[in-house]
């Protein structure tokens, strides 16, 4: 009689063991297949980040123009085509008037000049180190100039390697970006409406209202940021072309793009221009003018006193700590591109949170009004 429970106990153990191992096996299978699925997704979407980002930017820029046409009782699709046609004509006439920008020779020249600039920086650094060594002998162990040289050689190799590949990528951008922005312009409203209509009846009105507020603020902010970067870029370009400096358009573009990152961006955007000016022109009136263009005209007068107060509301101001965090996290995720767009994305999140909080507080005050009325 006592022997009977033991086999059942064993059977139970066996069943438990089987169930456990089956569970673990299923878990591992699901996990590994999930990770392969995630890998597939990553591979499939890896090239899409930049075109989608550019398309979103273009969508935000073109939307007011499309609305202008829509006001003339033209359908949205036709309006988008009209805007595209006008842009095409403008680009074409600019190309025929000014001539195509000589990107290729500019890139070749830059490739030839780049080592020269680096060499000059190294020379300068070595001089600095030599004087430092006499004062602080224990610095001898640090090979700073060697590190810089190694880093620049790696960077140069990367540029040489990436140029043909990026040429192909730029070609695909010219195809994908107009296509994506067309559909974003035409269908984004319908898409968002469909998404919002999924919310339960009870919260529908609130979600619709909050979405309206947030999207209005966001469109304002993103458009403001883009226009600000463009104006800064053009002003730096014009200011620099008054001097003998080379690559003025490129430096303008760098200044414009880096201007998207507050605090740190303008300084980083200034460095290449100043290095080129130092190496090619030396310290003289032209160098001081270039510094003046970067610091005084572009940053202080234009950006701080004119553009930011007009284009960007104070709501989007981020604490410097958040700026640094956003840059670091963005850099981890998407490299240099992530560093640049990390801060605007952080601002977007902040604006959304503030709008939702604002809506909730007005919701509560409305309740108070009603209860006061009843009393």
């Amino acid at each position, binding site marked *: 009689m006592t022997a009977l429970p033991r086999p059942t106990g064993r059977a139970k153990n066996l069943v438990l063991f089987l169930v456990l191992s089956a569970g673990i096996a299923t878990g591992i299978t699901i996990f590994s297949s999930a990770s392969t699925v995630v890998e597939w997704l990553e591979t499939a979407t890896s090239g899409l980040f930049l075109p989608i980002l550019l398309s979103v930017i273009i969508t935000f820029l073109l939307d007011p123009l499309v609305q202008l046409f829509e006001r003339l009782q033209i359908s949205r699709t036709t309006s988008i085509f009209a805007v595209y046609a006008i842009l095409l004509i403008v680009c074409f006439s600019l190309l025929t008037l000014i001539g195509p920008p000589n990107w290729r020779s500019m890139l070749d020249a830059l490739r030839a000049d780049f080592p020269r600039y680096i060499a000059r920086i190294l020379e300068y650094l070595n001089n600095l180190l030599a004087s430092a060594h006499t004062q602080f002998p224990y610095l001898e162990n640090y090979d700073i100039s060697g590190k810089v040289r190694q880093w620049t050689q790696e960077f140069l190799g990367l540029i040489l390697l990436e140029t043909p590949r990026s040429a192909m990528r730029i070609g695909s951008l010219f195809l994908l970006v107009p296509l994506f922005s067309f559909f974003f312009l035409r269908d984004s409203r319908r898409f968002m409406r469909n998404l919002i209509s999924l919310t339960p009846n009870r919260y529908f009105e609130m979600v619709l209202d909050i979405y*309206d507020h947030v999207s209005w603020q966001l469109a304002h902010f993103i458009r403001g940021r883009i226009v600000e970067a463009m104006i800064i870029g053009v002003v730096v370009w014009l200011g620099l072309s008054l001097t003998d400096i080379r690559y003025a358009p490129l430096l303008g573009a760098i200044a414009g793009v880096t201007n998207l990152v507050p605090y740190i961006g303008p300084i980083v955007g200034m460095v290449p221009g100043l290095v080129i000016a130092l190496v090619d022109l030396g310290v003289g009136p032209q160098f001081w003018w270039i510094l003046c263009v970067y610091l005084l005209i572009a940053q202080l007068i234009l950006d701080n006193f004119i553009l930011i107060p007009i284009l960007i509301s104070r709501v989007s101001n981020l604490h410097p700590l958040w700026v640094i965090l956003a840059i670091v996290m963005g850099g981890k995720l998407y490299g240099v591109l992530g560093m640049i767009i990390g801060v605007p994305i952080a601002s977007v999140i902040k604006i959304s949170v503030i709008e939702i909080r604002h809506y909730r507080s007005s919701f509560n005050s409305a309740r108070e009004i*009603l209860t006061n009325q009843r009393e």
Partner: protein
Amino acid sequence: MNPLWSNIFRKPGYEGTLAYFLGTIPTFATLGRRDLVFLESIIHLRNYNPGETVFSEGDIGSGMYIIRSGRVRIEMKDEQGVSQVQADLEAGDFFGEIALTTPRPRIATATATEQTVLVGLFRADLLDAIRKHPAMASKILLGLTRVLSERLQHAGLRLREQSYAHLKSVQEDQA
């Protein structure tokens, strides 16, 4: 007309469309077919189960509802906090139109009493329309204003009648 031609020119099933339905609502009665099609693109269709709350007293209102099908009960709480039925609305009726122009708390509770389809027109969409299609939006707003001012006049007349009746009864009492 030749049946062949009439078949070609007739838009089949327009009577069943949402645009046609919107045209039968007094608020939008003066709108043309083109405006109604535009209106159709900015409204939301919502389905409600019997007993489901559309909005409660004190919610922030952001728009009006038109009943496409089904029934909606409007209730208000009196001084003791007991809810009193104000109206039973059916297909073609609309409610909540005050909230369309100003964000005010709802003064009544609306509940669907059967399977109901509501057409919602909300402030966010109307403001968007004012920015993008000012001509059409002003037609819609004009229709709304007409209905609201008719109601205001009606309410004013009723108030005056009541105050006259009250005055009369006071005078009779004095006499």
